[in-house]
């Protein structure tokens, strides 16, 4: 197993190397910040014409996760779409694909700051501003304990930036799952405020847990990556 198992808010959870969170007790698959339609939105606003494959790339990865975990419910933890118009602009083929992925399971869309409106009839599932159950699921961390996304956390490991989960006592913050998403470094004040200490679980070939370090108090490390400096 390449996932990292841990307990949060009394629940046993798995941080998957893809950046998805699996909740075995319920068989829920939770992904944050898909940002589907991001390249379309950038083009619409007169920006760059980025390779228009990010919806395909993101759904390819999500489909692989669904195939691997066979979840009872898929949760998009907010910012599933880069904006409401981007959702409206999704092609029929993409909608069809999401319908197929949702077959035989529930789908829950948590609203995010990018996609506040309900998904409507064109897509499977229901939209909720947040979900309170054994776990509280919302887009942006609030009064903990809660599970959220929004910040796209990442850390540096052996000289490379990697997306990561942040696991603190009050907040569990998921990495962005979407293909075209940047990251906010875990040492940023916006994140250290929410998760001052705890673990970061980096998305690599397996989920790698490392202790969170404050940028101003990094312990000295014995190793470094000689290859990382060459290029």
């Amino acid at each position, binding site marked *: 197993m390449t996932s990292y198992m841990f307990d949060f808010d009394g629940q046993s959870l798995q941080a998957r190397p893809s950046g998805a969170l699996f909740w075995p007790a319920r068989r829920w698959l939770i992904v944050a910040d898909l940002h589907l339609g991001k390249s379309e939105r950038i*083009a619409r606003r007169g920006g760059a014409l980025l390779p228009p494959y990010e919806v395909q790339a993101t759904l390819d990865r999500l489909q692989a996760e669904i195939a691997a975990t066979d979840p009872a419910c898929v949760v998009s933890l907010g910012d599933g779409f880069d904006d409401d118009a981007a959702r409206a602009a999704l092609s029929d083929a993409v909608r069809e694909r999401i319908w197929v992925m949702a077959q035989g399971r529930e789908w829950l869309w948590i609203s995010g700051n990018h996609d506040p409106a309900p998904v409507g009839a064109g897509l499977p599932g229901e939209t909720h501003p947040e979900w309170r159950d054994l776990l509280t699921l919302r887009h942006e961390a609030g009064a903990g304990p809660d599970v959220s996304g929004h910040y796209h956390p990442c850390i540096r490991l052996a000289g490379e930036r990697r997306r990561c989960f942040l696991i603190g006592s009050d907040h569990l913050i998921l990495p962005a799952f979407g293909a075209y998403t940047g990251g906010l470094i875990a040492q940023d004040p916006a994140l250290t405020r929410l998760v001052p200490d705890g673990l970061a679980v980096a998305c690599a070939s*397996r989920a790698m847990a490392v202790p969170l370090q404050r*940028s101003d108090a990094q312990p000295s490390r014995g190793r470094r990556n000689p290859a990382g400096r060459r290029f």
Partner: protein
Amino acid sequence: MTLPASFRDWFARQGWQPHPHQVDLLNAQGDGLLIAPTGGGKTLAGFLPSLVDLSRGPYRGMHTLYVSPLKALTADIARNLARPVADLRLNIRIEDRTGDTRPAQRARQRVDPPDILLTTPESLALMLSYEQAPAIFGGLKRVVLDELHALAESKRGDQLMLGLARLRTLAPDLTVTGLSATVEDPRSLAAFMGGARVINADPGPDPDIAMLPTARPAPWAGGGGHYAIPEVLAQIKAANTTIIFINTRAQAELFFQALWAANDENLPIGLHHGSLAREARQRVEAAMAAGQLRAVVATGSLDLGIDWGAVDLVIQVGAPKNVKRLVQRIGRANHRYNAPSRARIVPANRFEVIECVAALQAVAERDLDGDPRGPGPLDVLCQHMLLTACAGPFDADHLFHEVCGAGPYRGLSRADFDACLDFAATGGYALRAYDRWQRLMQRDGLWRLRDPRAARDLRMNVGTIVEAEMLKVRLRGRGGAPLGEVEEAFAASLEPGDSFLIGGQTVRYEGLREMVVEVTKQPTKQPKIAVFSGVKMATSTQLSHRVQALIGDPARHDILPDTTRDWLDLQARISALPRDGVLVSESFPHMGRWHFALYGFAGRNALQTLGLLMTRTMEDAGLGPLGFLSTDYALLIWSLDPVTDPAPLLDRDALRDGLGDWLAGNAVMKRSFRSAATIAGLIQRNLPGQRKSGRQATFSSDILYDTLRRYDPGHLLLRITADEARRGLVDFDRIEDMLNHSPQHDHRMLDRVTPLAAPLLLEVGRVPIAGQGRERLAEEEAAALMAEAGLA
């Protein structure tokens, strides 16, 4: 055009005689390319026809446009021209226009251009993107392109030539003059500027150039040249002003420090390289101009620039790598025309001794080197199309015709042109996703911006210089002094407590704060790290061939120093000498590992690529490669099992396949992609002030590269990236050249280290091979961190 009496008098009053090439250029009809050594009055020659023309009466609009690669040069020219203009009482307005020019001045120049405008290729591209471009440049009579040899070496030159083609359309009577230092092939440079008559100035007397004799012989390996510090210091004392050229910034830092440690008389010596803060560089330049420095330790950052008449000695530390550049550097000493330049060379190690001897021979024979220019790059063309659309609607056929008039694009196919236009208009994707949001669209047969507001963003992205992401280095504390910049990748490898050299001082890394590397002074400690992961220049093809031929011809070994001759004799007895036409390799055990040395003489970049490709084949063959190392001359691979036959590892088709699939995912390729994508306008440069807002919204260009490779492998930008891999960092063309140049293999199995291989074992810069390299390193680091935190 003849020289008017007033000009002849002015020359006479200065005690000058016009140089023959200055008169030649004045009389020339049509476009000309003047090749002259430094100090030959090149710039005045370039401006003389304009000054004479303008002396006949006032001119409406811009008469002459001068383009130089350096902002500093435009300011210098403005000062130098001021004198004849004042003396001759000419009523001429001369202004410069660079990135530093104030907005108010720029706006005025658009409405009321000066008689002579001094600018850079980027500022010219920007001006051509204004709607007023036809009015600004419509009456232009002359264009002067300074330091054309330097511009032609990069994409800045391609962009400039596209701009020039545009100017020729706007002002059909234009006369263009190129000014260049000595180059190996003036005719190809003339073709680069779209065709011109070559005017060769008298090259002047042969330079006084030799190896610097030293008490100690050069060491076996390394690149520092510190063994020669006493002799270099003695040379500085004996000369008026010395420039010491060193190949890399890190070596410049270390040499500067070593020089200071031995500088008992406290001679004023400065340091100048591209990673230093601009303020620090300007201080050194000003001190140099004022004659306050006896020497300056510099990298290529001083290859161009303002002439310092007082410099009378150039010392090159380390292999010259390139004969043409060596000659141009030598030319920086003694800027008096018809006085020989003085230069001394200090090889840094035994291999470089041979290279220096070979280079001196090439200088004596005036046999310059240079790689032929490839065709005009398509990413630059994409940018040009977008900027052309900013100026106004264009017709595709007309633009194609115009672009083909630019030297680098004379062979451009219509299919490539159309592919670029498709990219600029729609993104050029197989999935036609952006029909509604095209950047350019065709209306009434003309291509134009869909949204005119996009012009602002496109103009902000002008230029072809794509820097590695650099981070500023500052002393910790309020208002800490800026020291310079380091690459982001280098900063990421630092840990608190690490020390490194920058600006001649040792500093301690404290941390990263808001994208600034914070350091404290640490004068006593030895720096652990002195690596800037900059691009390392490879030895030129021609010089490498000379070195290979010299090593392989014992009859010519008498021109080598004794120690070098003995070394090569021993190699010939124990193994074999690399020689012209023969690729020599050796397998031998050392410290419990098999080593494979290949004397490829293909330059460090190509040999590094070859190392990556060969170790992969060795891994497949089960030889258990553990690591490799590349220099300009040789590749050394260590493995569990020996290489007994190198031929299958050097199979041309297999190497090409490796380049196609495996290397395509390499970080070097991603870097080429980022540069092409930025120039072509797919991604925006990081603009100042943007980075602070955090990276949450932005993402790495690597993601775009991986996405395109997976979903749209035929995309134009991937084609451009693969083309670039033939040169530069990947340098695959040199691997092919090596295989062509040395078709014969001579492989020796030996029982111990050979004389030629021994120095390689001492070199630094080993690349470890791990099947799952980066992942494994990350795992080790994660495990170590967990253990340290008591969590594992």
